[in-house]
């Protein structure tokens, strides 16, 4: 069987997810054995236009981006959204909640009109996405598992339990049970990262997106219980999940 042709594309983002792929080390070399990488700008000047699987990183943030992603969708058999920017629009969506004229002026002054930019959107706002690999940045193991499932004709899947499940398994003291409770989105965020943020003493900021049927009412109740202001709630949801209400 011919090796599947794989391409990587980046849109507006920090490129941390592509770099995560590049940092697979020895496993990257194994990956290059089982697939043919035809387009990986970050690593190669060769530009192939014929591919089966397209990994797309980043958010759609300009009218040119819209044209480009439509073209990629036409060519790719399978389109995978790589990372939070592609999945939920990630941190790029933060700016959607500002006055667009003002922020353009803030950065580019009176030249703001020169640059093509639109509200930041996830890939599936423009084209159909077959699979998502969430997180900011993607998890190496999850990426490798995904690729091997896809190559072996198994349907890749994501865990549908919350981060809290993994956090409890790790034996962490819950952020809400600390003497000075810390806001944490673990209860409504899709697990699979191994609760790395709470485990490193920080809080879950929701980068893997919401679990299906997330109980946002219970979350709201919890945050109210701890006296979190409406403003702080919005701030926190709007780290990665500002556009959630607009998604199915």
């Amino acid at each position, binding site marked *: 069987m011919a090796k599947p042709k794989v391409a990587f594309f980046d849109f507006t983002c920090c490129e941390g997810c592509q770099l995560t792929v590049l*940092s697979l*080390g020895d496993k990257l070399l194994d990956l290059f054995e089982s697939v043919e990488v035809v387009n990986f*700008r970050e690593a190669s*000047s060769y530009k192939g236009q014929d591919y089966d699987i397209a990994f797309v990183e980043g958010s759609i943030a300009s009218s040119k981006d819209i044209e480009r992603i439509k073209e990629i969708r036409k060519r790719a058999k399978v389109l995978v959204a790589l990372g939070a920017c592609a999945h939920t629009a990630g941190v790029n969506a933060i700016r959607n909640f500002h006055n667009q004229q003002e922020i353009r002026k803030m950065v580019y002054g009176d030249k703001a009109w020169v640059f093509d930019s639109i509200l930041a959107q996830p890939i599936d706002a423009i084209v159909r996405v077959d699979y998502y690999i969430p997180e900011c940045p993607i998890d190496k193991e999850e990426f490798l598992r995904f690729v091997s499932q896809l190559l072996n004709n198994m349907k890749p899947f994501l865990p549908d339990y919350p981060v809290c499940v993994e956090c409890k398994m790790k034996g962490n003291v819950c952020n809400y049970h600390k003497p*000075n409770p810390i806001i944490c989105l673990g209860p409504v965020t899709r697990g699979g990262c191994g609760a790395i943020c709470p485990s490193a003493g920080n809080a879950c900021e929701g980068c893997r997106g919401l679990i299906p049927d997330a109980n946002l009412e219970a979350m709201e109740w919890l945050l109210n219980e701890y006296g979190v202001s409406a403003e702080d709630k919005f701030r926190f949801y709007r780290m990665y999940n500002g556009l959630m209400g607009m998604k199915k």
Partner: protein
Amino acid sequence: MTGKDLNIYVHHVTRVEGHGNILVDVKNGELKEVKLEIIESPRFFEAMLVGRRFPEAVHIASRICGICSISHTAASIKAIEDALDIKPTWQTETLRKILMEAEILDSHALHSFFLAVPDFFGLPSVIPMASTNPDVVKTAINFKKLAHEICDVMVGRHTHPISMVVDGFTNLVTEEQMAELLKKIKAALKNDVPKMLEFFSRIKFPDFERKANYTCLVNPEMYPFYDGMIKSSEAGVYRHRDYRQKIVERVVDHSTAKHAFGPVKPYMVGALARFNTNYKQLMPGAQEAAKMLGLEAPSYNPYHITLAQVVEIVHCLESMSRLIEQLLSRGIRDERVERPPLAGWSARLPPAKKSWGVGVVEAPRGLLIHEYRINGNGTIDAANCIIPTAQNLANIEADMRELVPQILDRSKEEITQLLEMLVRSYDPCISCSAHLLKVDFVE
């Protein structure tokens, strides 16, 4: 060759981080125009930071760049600490220095081996080298693995640190973990460094010189990445809080990345600027490495940026060993800090004496400045970020303007190749400030 017409348009320069195009226009042997166009969609980080509580701001700042996430985190933290008058402990600062050097190692290994080297072998990427030069590829992978392990162990993840926060760390490495890392760093110095040096000493870099205004941090105590005053070879030494008097950002129509200019003309930041300015403070092995590579300070050849990066790889490995040894001899204290609580947190904020702060560090690609104004609620009111590539853009164009007339007698392919190599040599991170090179010739 006089009377020559040349029109080069390189669409999407490859093996650089972000999307950029090169444009050269020569009419009758006279250079009309040289441009490095940045066509990346604007990112608006400053706008993303405004209205944010500072613990969130640090994590958002990290997302400006996947490869320099430690540097952005450090600059962000330092700006906040400067504004809130927080003085971190020696231990915290030492751990941050180690992290910064680990990031330099990671980023330089990526650039020098994976992105720059294929040019010298006429290859489109490093991938075919896995079979032709397996040893070299293995060495690069070892460096990257080591850097990732250091970050993983110290801050919970290699890209976008989790536990590195204002005033310290939410989780601390143990002495055992640091001792383990130290062993691996020493092994890399012994096994991988000689292979790297042997490989790079055989590469011939293009000859081209243009003296630039070299700008970087200076610090009497060490070859600085984390802290120091800013020194420009033309404007002298000045304090980080005075940067606005010395650095001017301008919006140019052909670039979504703002260009930054020195007081009089373009300036260079990054590995070569640091090497030229601070070479005397390099660790002994790194000085030795520079000799082996034939790199003498000052070098006015921008293609030598890659060599300066190789020297810095050696320096960072040695410096990290020294810092870890110091840390272990003092013992690691449990100085864990907590993320500010969710309610009533402003009550726990340190009294703010200043309302604004500036954080400056040396990112892998050079000077990185974050400046924030913070209000009494610990929320960011205004932000300004000056990214290394934005500072180098004007200098790259100045280099191209001088280089093109010198090589006009060569073939279009050669000229294009030299220009692409020049751009790649600066290791521009265009996604931060602006992707594959397609060449269109119009005659």
